[in-house]
C-alpha cells in the first residue's frame, strides 16, 4: 500500500502534535494546508491548460501553435501571464467598483470550490458531502453570479447583453443537468460523489449513456463554450461580459473558464467514468490521481473538439433545444431508469452487476431509438410545413366559403 500523501499528512500531524498543539488546531492546519495544496495544484494545471488549449486548437485549425518558447512552446503560458500582469488595469468610468472587482474573483473561486468534493484517489478526497451532487449544482449557480455581476457592473451594453444571455442559458440548462445528475444518484443510491465512484465497478457510462450525454451537453452550456458561447459571442456582442476587463482580472476570467472546463471533465469522469478507478489503484492510491486527470483531460479534449467543430447556435434555437428536447428527454430517462432499476432489483439482479448494467444499457438504447424515430417524423412534418406553399388569399385560408 503505497500512499505518500496520507503518509505525509500523518507525519505532519504527529509533528504538530509533538509541538503540543491541540488536535482541533492540528486538524484545522492540515485542512488549510490541503486546501492550499489542491488549489495551487489545479492552478498550475490551469497554466498548463492554456498551452494545451492553444496547441489543440492549432491542430484543429491545421496550424502548429506556440512552438518558440521552450520545448513545444511550453513556456508560452508564462509569457502570457507576464503580459497580463504588466497590462494596464482599467476600471471603466460609471462602473460599479466593488461589484466590478468582485466578479472575477467569484468566477475563479467558484471553480476552485468545485474541487472540494472531487475524490482524487480512494484515500484522498477533500470533503465527502452526502449531498455532493447538489453541491456541484449550487456552486455552478454561484459561478453564474460572477458572470452576471461582471456583465452588469462594467456598465456596458454588450456586457449586459452577455450577462442576460448567460442568465437565460444557465437557468435553462440547469434543469436537464440536475435531472441527468439524478441518474448516477439512482444507480449508486447515494448523492455523495465518493460513494458514486466507489460503486462504479462498471462505469456508469455503460449503464447510463443518455444521462452522460445530457450531462455533457448541459455542462458545455454551463461552461458557456461553443456552440453555446453566446455570453461572449465575439461576432455579435464584442466580447460579452468581460469586454471591459483587462490585465489580471481578465486573466482570472480566462483561467476560470479553462479550469471550469477541466473541472467539468473531472466531474464527468467521477460520475460516469469511474473517477480514480484503474489498474493497481488499490496498491498505490496515488495512481488514482493520474487516472482521474487522464480521464478529465480526455473529456476536456472532447469539449474542445466540440468547441472547435461546431458553429454557434442562435439563442432561440438554443432555448428550444433545451426546453423542447433536452429536458423532456432527461425526465423520460430518469423515470425509466428508476422504473428499470426497481424492476431489475425485483427480479433479483443486483445493482452494479454486469447484467444490471447491460439491461440498463438496453433501456437507454430503447429510449434513444424511440427518440430518434420521433425526431425523424417531427423533422418530416417540419419539412412539409416549411415546404408547403401558403396561398395568400385562397378561399380555404381566408375563410371565405367556396361556392
Amino acid at each position: 500500500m503505497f500512499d505518500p500523501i496520507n503518509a505525509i499528512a500523518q507525519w505532519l500531524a504527529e509533528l504538530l502534535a509533538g509541538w503540543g498543539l491541540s488536535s482541533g488546531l492540528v486538524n484545522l492546519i492540515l485542512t488549510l494546508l490541503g486546501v492550499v495544496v489542491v488549489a495551487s495544484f489545479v492552478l498550475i494545471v490551469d497554466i498548463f491548460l492554456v498551452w494545451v488549449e492553444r496547441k489543440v486548437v492549432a491542430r484543429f485549425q491545421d496550424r502548429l501553435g506556440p512552438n518558440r518558447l521552450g520545448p513545444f512552446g511550453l513556456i508560452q503560458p508564462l509569457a502570457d501571464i507576464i503580459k497580463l500582469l504588466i497590462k494596464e488595469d482599467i476600471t471603466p468610468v460609471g462602473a460599479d467598483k466593488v461589484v466590478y472587482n468582485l466578479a472575477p474573483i467569484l468566477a475563479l473561486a467558484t471553480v476552485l470550490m468545485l474541487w472540494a468534493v472531487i475524490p482524487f484517489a480512494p484515500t484522498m478526497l477533500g470533503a465527502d458531502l452526502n449531498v455532493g451532487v447538489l453541491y456541484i449544482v449550487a456552486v455552478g449557480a454561484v459561478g453564474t453570479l460572477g458572470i452576471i455581476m461582471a456583465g452588469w457592473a462594467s456598465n456596458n451594453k454588450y456586457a449586459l447583453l452577455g450577462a442576460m444571455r448567460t442568465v437565460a442559458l444557465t437557468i435553462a440548462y440547469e434543469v436537464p443537468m440536475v435531472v441527468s445528475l439524478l441518474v448516477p444518484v439512482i444507480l449508486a443510491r447515494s448523492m455523495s460523489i465518493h460513494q458514486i465512484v466507489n460503486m462504479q465497478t462498471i462505469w456508469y457510462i455503460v449503464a447510463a449513456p443518455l444521462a452522460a450525454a445530457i450531462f455533457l451537453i448541459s455542462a458545455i452550456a454551463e461552461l458557456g463554450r461553443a456552440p453555446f458561447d453566446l455570453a461572449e459571442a465575439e461576432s455579435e456582442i464584442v466580447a460579452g461580459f468581460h469586454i471591459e476587463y483587462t490585465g489580471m482580472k481578465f486573466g482570472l476570467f480566462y483561467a476560470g473558464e479553462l479550469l471550469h472546463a477541466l473541472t467539468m471533465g473531472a466531474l464527468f469522469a467521477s460520475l460516469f467514468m469511474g473517477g480514480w478507478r484503474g489498474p493497481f489503484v488499490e496498491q498505490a492510491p496515488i495512481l488514482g490521481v493520474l487516472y482521474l486527470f487522464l480521464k478529465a483531460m480526455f473529456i476536456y479534449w472532447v469539449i474542445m473538439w466540440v468547441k472547435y467543430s461546431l458553429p454557434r447556435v442562435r439563442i432561440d434555437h438554443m432555448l428550444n433545444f433545451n426546453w423542447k428536447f433536452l429536458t423532456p428527454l432527461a425526465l423520460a430517462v430518469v423515470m425509466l431508469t428508476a422504473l428499470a432499476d426497481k424492476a431489475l432489483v425485483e427480479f433479483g439482479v443486483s445493482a452494479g452487476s454486469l447484467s444490471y448494467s447491460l439491461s440498463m444499457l438496453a433501456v437507454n438504447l430503447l429510449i434513444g431509438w424511440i427518440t430518434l424515430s420521433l425526431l425523424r417524423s417531427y423533422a418530416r412534418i417540419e419539412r412539409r410545413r416549411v415546404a408547403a406553399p401558403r396561398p395568400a388569399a385562397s378561399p380555404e385560408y381566408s375563410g371565405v366559403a367556396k361556392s
Partner: protein
Amino acid sequence: MTPLQIIFILVAAMTLGAGLMVVTARNLVHSALWLILALFGVAIVYVLLQAGFLAVVQVVIYIGAIAILMIFAIMLTRNIATESGPRFSENWSWALVIALVLFGTLAWMLSGWEGIAAQAPAISPRFDTVRELGLALVSPDGFVLAFEVASVLLLAALIGALVIAWDRR
C-alpha cells in the same frame, strides 16, 4: 462562548446587515446582491443546524434560481434599476412602526415562552437526515400529499408565468 456560537453570531450579524441593505439600498442590483448575501447567511445557519441538504438546496434554489431571476427581471426593467428619486413610498413611516411593533411583540412573546430554553437533542451519526427526508417526502404515511400539491403548484406557476409574460404582439 463556543466557536459554534461565535460563528453563529458573525453569520447572523452578516445576514441581518445584508437584509437591512436589501431593504434600504438605493440601487436595485445592489439590493439583489445583498439579498444573495443574506440568503447565503441563512444557508450557513442551516449548516449550523445540521440541515446540510437544505443548505445546499437553499443555495441552488434561492441563489441559483430566484436571485438570478430577480437580477434578470431588474435588467429587463432596467431604466428604474438605478433610478434616483425616493426608494420608499410615502407611507414608509407606518411600515417602520408596524415592523418594530411586530418585532417587539414577537420578542415579548418569545421571552415569555418556557420552551425557549430547549436543548438540542443529539442526532446519532447513523441517522441519515437526507435519506429520512426523502422517505418522509414520498412515503404515504409521510408528506406525499403536500409533496404532490407542491409539484402541482410549481407546474401551475410554470404555465401561469408563461401565460402572463407572453408578449402578444
